[in-house]
Every structure is written in C-alpha cells, then in structure tokens.
C-alpha cells in the first residue's frame, strides 16, 4: 500500500500467427502492461497492419453504432479467439461497404435539407420580386446584353465580392439575408461573364434556379414550388427507409463485428507500444507483477501448450524511470487516490503518499472545520448523493465524520460554542494554543516529508542527495536543530546548545553539497551556494509557518459563526432563525469549500512538492472491453 508492487520485465516469444491470441490471453490475464520491445534482432513490426485494420474497422463500427443505436451488452465467450489479420481486413471491408451505404443516405438527407432551404428562399424571392413590379421574363432573358443572376453567398464575403465584381463592370445588389446567407442579384455585361465565374465559385455563390413558370405566372410558380416540396418529402422518406433497412439487415452482424473487434483490441493496443518480430516469430514485451508470474506461465501453458517462450528479468537500474507503478489500494483508500494522482503518479519504487495523504487531509480538514452540526450536514449530504458522486462520496462522508469529531473536541454545534463543553479546547478561548499546535503539526509534517524524500532519493540510487542535500538528512538535521533552538528560546525546551550544533552541522553539510554540485565559475559557484543554502532555510520555515493557516481557519470558523449570530440577534424570531439557517448554509458551502481547497493546497505544496516527483508511469494493463483488470 505504501510502495508499488515489484514488477518484472517479461518478453513473450510466439508464432506471429498466434500473436492476436497471445495478446488476448494477456488481456484476460489482466495484469500485463505492454512496453516497447528492445531486442534489436527483431526488426519487423508484425502487428502494425493488424492495428491499422483494427483502427479503421473500429472507427467505422463506432459510426455505424451511432447511427443504429446500441445493440445490446457485449458478452465475450471465455473460449472465443481473436480474429486473424485476414479476418480483420475482411470485416473492415464489410464495415466500409455498410458505412458507405449509410453515408449515401446521409448525403441524400443533407442534399434534401439544402434543397428545401433553397425552395424556401425562392419562395421569399418570389414574394419580394412580385412586389417589385419587375418583368422577370425580360430581366432574365438569355439573349439580353445584360447577364443577371439571382442567388446567395456568405454574408461575410459580400463586400469583397462586390469590390471584385466591380472590377469587371458587375453590380451586386443585396435584397435579403437569412442567417449568415445573403441573397443578392448580380448584373453585368454578358460579354464579361467568364471573368466573374471564378470569383463566384470561390465566394461560394449558390444560384437560385428561377423556373420559367416564375418568370411569367406567379401562381404557376407557387404550384411548381409545392410540387417540388412534395417530391423532396418523398425522397427524404425513402432515405429514412434505407436507414431502417440497414438497421434490420445488419443489426446482428454488427453485433458480431463488435464482438470480434473487442477480441482483436488487445493486439491492436499492444501494437501501439511495439510488438516486434522477424520471419514467423513475434515478441510481446511488458511488465507483470512478480507475484503473478506463475499464474502467467500457467495461463500461457494452458492456452498454447508450450508454443511460447517467456523470458523474465528484473528491471535494470537504467530503466527504473520506465517501469510503471502498480499499487494495490484497499477499497476505503481508493477514493483518495484520484486526489493524489491529480498531482502525479509515484515513480516505481517511490514511497506512495496515498495513505498519509488520506489521514493528513482528513485531519487538516477536521481541524480547520470542526463542528458537529456542519460535519453532520456534509456527511449526510455526501451519503445522500453517493450514487451521483460515486466513490468520491466516501471522501465527503469521512471529512464530515472527522469534522464532527473535531466539533466534539472544540465543543461546537452549528456555530454554537456554549451548548456543549469542549472535550479538548475551544479555538476562540485559547487561540495561542491552537496556533502552537498548528505549527507543531507543521514541524512533524515537514519532518515526515524530508524523511520520505531521503527514502525516495535513496531508492532511486541517489544516495548523496538522500544524505547531504537540503531535502535529505542533512536538511532534516538543520531543520530539527533550528526548531530545537527556537523552542529553547521560547522556553518550551532546554536543548539550545546541542540543537544549535545539529543545525550548524546540517547547514554546513548542505552548503558543502551545493558547492560540489554547482558546475560554474568561482563567483557564480559562491553565489549559487549562498543563495541555495539561504533558500533552504527560508523555505523550510516559511513552509512550517504555512501551517498556521490551520489555526487561522479554525478561528475563522468561529468568527463567521459569531458574525451570523450578531446579525441574527438584531432581528425578530423569524428573521433570527432565517439568518441562522442561511448563515450556516453559507458557512458550510463557502468556508467548507475554502477549507477543502486549503487542506489540498497544504498537502500538494508543503508536502508532495518536497518528496514526490509525480512523474511516474501508471500501470495500464491490456484489457478487454467488457472486462476489468483483475488487479
């Protein structure tokens, strides 16, 4: 729980023709994280074509399913085999055929929709032109010297088109606008007609076809428009029937395609990491937990009866940064893990901060927001919204419970500080003690982070940093020594002399380390050593003082409640209880939210940033679509 599981690097050699089944077996096994194969002798990529076909087929299938709707749950039989490359390509070709049929229906629908909007525009045009009292037959005569076009173009291009056409003696007259489309009449010398064609095409000009009927008899034109609309409606219905036909005809086969693509997924996914091979051989590389190695061997033997070769080795020091982290968390801790991972993934071998994070986060939240009533509201709300919040509801329940516990310690219920006796202390009446405790907690927390950092550096093989750097044991010696001196000065302890010696020794070692680490000229080296050593001291103490906010927020909680009571006491009975209720809602929402963020901030910046690089790789096992990894 505090460290990633030990992993081993495995390389599985098999017949290339069985690679898809091997990947499927590994996905069913559930804890194989694929990794690039590094054997130079295996120069080919036998699964590349497989992945390409799978990606194409998967893309077509998802588009088809989007059209036809989901066609039921997917149950993969335990003995089902993954399709071979030829099968996959055949499936892909079939999906392409079906999707193109669908696409034609789509294109038809789009064309019909566009034709409809043109008809609408034409009808509007008719209405307007009727009012203009223009003899259209004369205007649109094909043998006239004046060429006239009626049509539409994007509104944004109108000015540019007008300017461009002016260069050829053409006029553009806008007469309507629908959305982003402008309807216009373009007129100009017929002799220069060719010069404007390119501009109009480039500008996205759509000509409105004006039928002969329109030119002479408006009533006939309206009849023509109605007939066109009916024709388009029948075409649209036909397109819908085609779509329904597709659904009925291909539904079961699409379901089968879904199943086969799910079985093909493992090799396609593994190919992304890099399946290598040569001739008839293929190799799959990756990481598996050491404790599951026997299980892996048994799985492969059962499936392939000795037709595979499994090469196993421990990760080398050079590749530690490449090894993924697989940490098993108990169910109660799992909801806190996303909060840790939002900062970063622990490196393989590094100390995993999820457990101390969960405890410390709850402790800080409770200490800053200690109130039995407010905690109970948070707890009950989280429990009530458990279905919507998922596992994160548990974080709310736990935070609410800890808040209630601290409420008991502080003797606080919905801001009332006098209803019950505090079991421990009242922040309002003993603020100095609260501040001292907060700083004391900060000292303990920073000590822990320095130890964790020293451990992580040591595990990563950077012993010098673990021992002598500002974040290592030397930094810790300086920090504890300085804390001892300050405590002695404040009269809380009597260890001034040994503490000063410890602090002095620590800071000298840190400075010496910085000096040897700096790669620069003499002047710059002196400067770097001085500044970085000074920064060590300042950082450690400013980070410690940062924990005073824990006390400040616990006081703030009481102060907010006092403000609410002051307001409420000036009102009548109804106003009083209304103010008390609304005030408590504001405290829970506003202060609760701020405290939740502040606790997270303390964890991230005063804690994680000190020992947690967060640049590890997550263990991502090969998976089947319908099966969760058995981690």
């Amino acid at each position, binding site marked *: 729980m505090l460290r990633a599981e030990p992993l081993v690097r495995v390389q599985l050699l098999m017949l290339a023709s069985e690679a898809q089944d091997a990947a499927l077996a590994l996905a069913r096994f559930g804890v194989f994280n694929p990794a*690039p194969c590094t054997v130079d002798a295996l120069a080919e990529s036998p699964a590349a074509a497989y992945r*390409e076909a799978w*990606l*194409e087929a998967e*893309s*077509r299938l998802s588009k088809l399913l989007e059209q036809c709707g989901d066609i039921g749950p997917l149950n993969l039989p335990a003995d089902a085999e993954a399709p071979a490359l030829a099968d996959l390509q055949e499936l892909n070709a079939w999906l*392409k055929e079906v*999707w*193109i049929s669908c*696409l034609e229906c*789509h*294109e038809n629908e*789009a064309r019909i929709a566009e034709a409809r909007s043109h008809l609408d525009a034409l009808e509007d045009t008719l209405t307007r032109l009727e009012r203009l009292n223009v003899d259209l037959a004369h205007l649109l005569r094909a043998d006239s010297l004046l060429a006239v076009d009626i049509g539409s173009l*994007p509104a*944004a*291009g109108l*000015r*540019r*088109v007008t*300017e*461009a*056409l002016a*260069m*050829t003696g053409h006029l553009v007259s806008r007469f309507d606008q629908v959305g982003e489309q402008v309807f216009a009449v373009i007129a100009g010398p017929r002799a220069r007609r*060719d*010069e*404007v064609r*390119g*501009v*109009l*095409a*480039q*500008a*996205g*000009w*759509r000509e409105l076809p004006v039928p002969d009927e329109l030119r002479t008899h408006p009533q006939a034109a309206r009849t023509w428009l109605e007939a066109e609309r009916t024709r388009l409606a029948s075409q649209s219905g036909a397109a819908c029937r085609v779509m329904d036909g597709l659904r009925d005809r291909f539904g079961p086969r699409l379901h089968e395609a879904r199943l086969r693509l799910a079985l093909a997924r493992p090799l396609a996914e593994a190919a992304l990491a890099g399946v290598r091979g040569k001739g008839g051989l293929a190799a799959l590389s990756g990481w598996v937990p050491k404790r599951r190695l026997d299980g892996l061997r048994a799985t492969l033997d059962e499936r392939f009866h000795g037709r595979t070769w499994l090469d196993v080795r421990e990760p080398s020091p050079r590749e530690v*940064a*490449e090894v993924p982290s697989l940490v098993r968390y108990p169910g109660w801790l799992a909801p806190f893990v996303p909060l840790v991972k939002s900062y970063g993934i622990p490196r393989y071998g590094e100390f995993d901060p999820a457990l101390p994070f969960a405890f410390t986060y709850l402790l800080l939240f409770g200490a800053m927001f200690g109130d039995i009533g407010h905690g109970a509201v948070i707890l009950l709300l989280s429990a009530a919204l458990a279905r919507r919040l998922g596992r994160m509801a548990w974080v709310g329940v736990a935070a609410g419970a800890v808040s209630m516990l601290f409420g008991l310690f502080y003797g606080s219920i919905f801001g009332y500080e006098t209803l019950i006796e505090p079991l421990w202390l009242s922040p309002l009446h003993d603020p100095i003690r609260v501040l001292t405790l907060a700083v004391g907690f900060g000292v303990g927390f920073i000590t822990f982070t320095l130890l964790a950092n020293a451990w992580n550096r040591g595990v990563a093989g950077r012993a010098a940093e673990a021992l002598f750097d500002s974040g290592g044991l030397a930094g810790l010696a300086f920090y504890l020594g300085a804390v001892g001196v300050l405590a002695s000065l404040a009269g809380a302890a009597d260890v001034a002399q040994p503490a000063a010696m410890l602090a002095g020794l620590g800071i000298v070692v840190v400075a010496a380390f910085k000096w040897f680490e700096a790669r620069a000229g003499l002047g710059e080296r002196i400067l770097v050593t001085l500044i970085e050593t000074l920064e060590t001291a300042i950082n450690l103490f400013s980070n410690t003082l940062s924990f005073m906010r824990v006390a400040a927020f616990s006081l703030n909680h009481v102060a907010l409640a006092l403000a609410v009571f002051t307001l409420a006491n000036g009102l009548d009975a109804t106003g009083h209880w209304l103010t008390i209720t609304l005030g408590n809602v504001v405290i829970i929402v506003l202060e609760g939210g701020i405290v939740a963020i502040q606790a997270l901030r303390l964890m991230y910046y005063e804690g994680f940033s000190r020992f947690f690089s967060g640049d590890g790789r997550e263990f991502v096992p090969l998976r089947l679509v319908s099966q969760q990894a058995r981690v």
Partner: protein
Amino acid sequence: MSAYLDTRVSLFSGRLWHDTALAALIGVPDDAMSDAMKRRGFPHLAAGSADEAGREDTRSLEQRIVAQILDETRVLIRPLSGEARSFLTFWTARFEMSNVKTLLRSKLTDERPAVVLARLTPMGAFGQLDHPDLAHAEDLGELLRRLEAGPFAGIVRHARRAFEQTRDPFNLDAALDHGYYEGLIQRARPLEDTVGNPFRTLMANLIDRINLVWLLRYRFNYKLPPAQVYYLLVGSHYGLPSSRLQELAALDSFEAVLAALPAALQSQLAGATDIPGVFGRMESAAAEQARRVLRSRGPAIARAFAYLILRERDLRGVRAVLRGRHLGLPAADIRQALQRGSAEAM
C-alpha cells in the same frame, strides 16, 4: 506579466541565428552537428536524436521544427490572457490548417488513414482537432462535415462551398489560407489599437508580403482573371490596402506590378525578377524590422511576436541546411536557398 514575458523573450532571443551563423552550419562536420543544434536550443533537430528515455525520435524534420515552435510559443503565452493570448494561439493554428489541408488532400487521393496520420503535425497543447477521427472519415464529404462541426467551422464551411462549385482542390486550399489570414487580421486589430506601432508594423510586413506574393503567383503563374485574384487576397488595411490591391491585380505584367508599388516597397524590391526573389527580399526586410522590435523596449507582446517570426525564419533556414546536407547538395546551392528564403511557408 509583462516583465515575465519581456525576460522570457530576451532569454529566448539569445538563441536566434545570424545569417552568417546559419551559413556556417552548412560546413559543420556531421559529428559536430548535434552539438551545434543543442547550443541553439534545437536538441531535437539533429537527425536520429533520442529523447530523455533513450527512445528514437521518429518524427519528421518538419514535425520536430513545428514541435519546437509550439514548445516556445507555449512558454511565451503562459503569462498572457485575452486578446494577446488569443492572437498568439491563433498564430499557431497555421500548423493545424496545414493539417486540415493534408487531411483533405488525403481524401482526394484516397490515402490510408495510418499513412496520413503519420504525416500530420502533432499540435500538443495547441491541438484543437481530433486527428484520428478525421483521418478515419470515409470520404471528403464526411471529412468536411466533421470539420464543420469543429473549431474552424467558419473557414471550412466557406472552403466547402468554394470546392463544391468546381471540385478544384486549388479552391479548397485558397479558401482555407484566405480564411486563416482574415482570422489573424481580425485578432490582430484590437492589439494594433492597444499595443501600437511595433506590433502593427510586424503584421503589415506579414500581410503585405502574403498579398503581394499571392497576387503575383495567381495573376502571372496561374493566369487567373484580375477580379478573382483580388477576391483571393486578404482584406488589408496595411501598406497595400484593398484599393491598391485592386489596381495591382488589374495590371498585365510582373514588372508593371512592381513599378506600381508604393515607393518604400519598390526600393525594397529593387532587382527582384521573379516571385521567390520578391519573397526573399520582403522576408529579409521583415526580419530586419522584427529584429528592431525585438531589440527595442517596445511592448512585450510585440517583442514576443517578433521573436516567433524570427525563430520560425531560423528554423526554416536550419531545415533548408539539414535537408540540403541530407540530399548531398553542393554548399553553394544550399547557400543560395538560404539567401532567397523559402517560399514554401506560404
């Protein structure tokens, strides 16, 4: 914010190459090339370079160059917000537009999705398009519909309408370029008002160069009619405003166009006899202007934009050198390519 950006730009500007240093790169021995690149902040440009984990970098030279520019832009826009951030972010969208063109062409030539995906430029934090989804579109129609549902809907819708009329791929490309630069000018306008002359000069050099080179190319290489040429140019309020562009587009020869340019541009282009020559001279003048802005105590956003212009020019030069060396071209040819600048970027 401004102090951070100023400091960043000043630090970055130490990486820029002088033309002489770039020319000297032609003669650097192969084994010293990687070091020379690293010294200038181009660790990934030397062929066969590996990442920190020792994995081979399989990206093409172009992809590495764009990755470098995007990395630096990401650092520079960190302290920016509002119009300045929007402008520099859109400045990087040129590469995404180039991806859009690649995707569209791949559908016209029925290329395999895996092949086209390998050619697309990864946009990292600036990525706005789902490349795999777009590459797997069945045909051009589906691809255009998907693009029209994305962040470049306005530009792509216009391009589709232009293309549908003629089915001419040129119309697609021209509409996309036109739409992009119109968008850039639109985003630059508020900055020109607030930041002032240094920024405006940089934009003016860029847009005037694009308009003049396009005008010459469309008019005299593609023989398009004047009205269409004018329509394809970017609406401008800089040194070559729309009224001047109309007059220039109506002229009948390359020489007549150069002779009708404003005096400042005429002297800049003295001796140019072809379009690459025009591009090279205008680009050199723009680079000189950008250097002046970079050295000045001008507004931080103008200095950042100047740096990005110069850095991209450098990278194009480095690409020319690396490609020339890779192809085994004589040093004189590579040097000539450097002097003329590369019109490919447009």
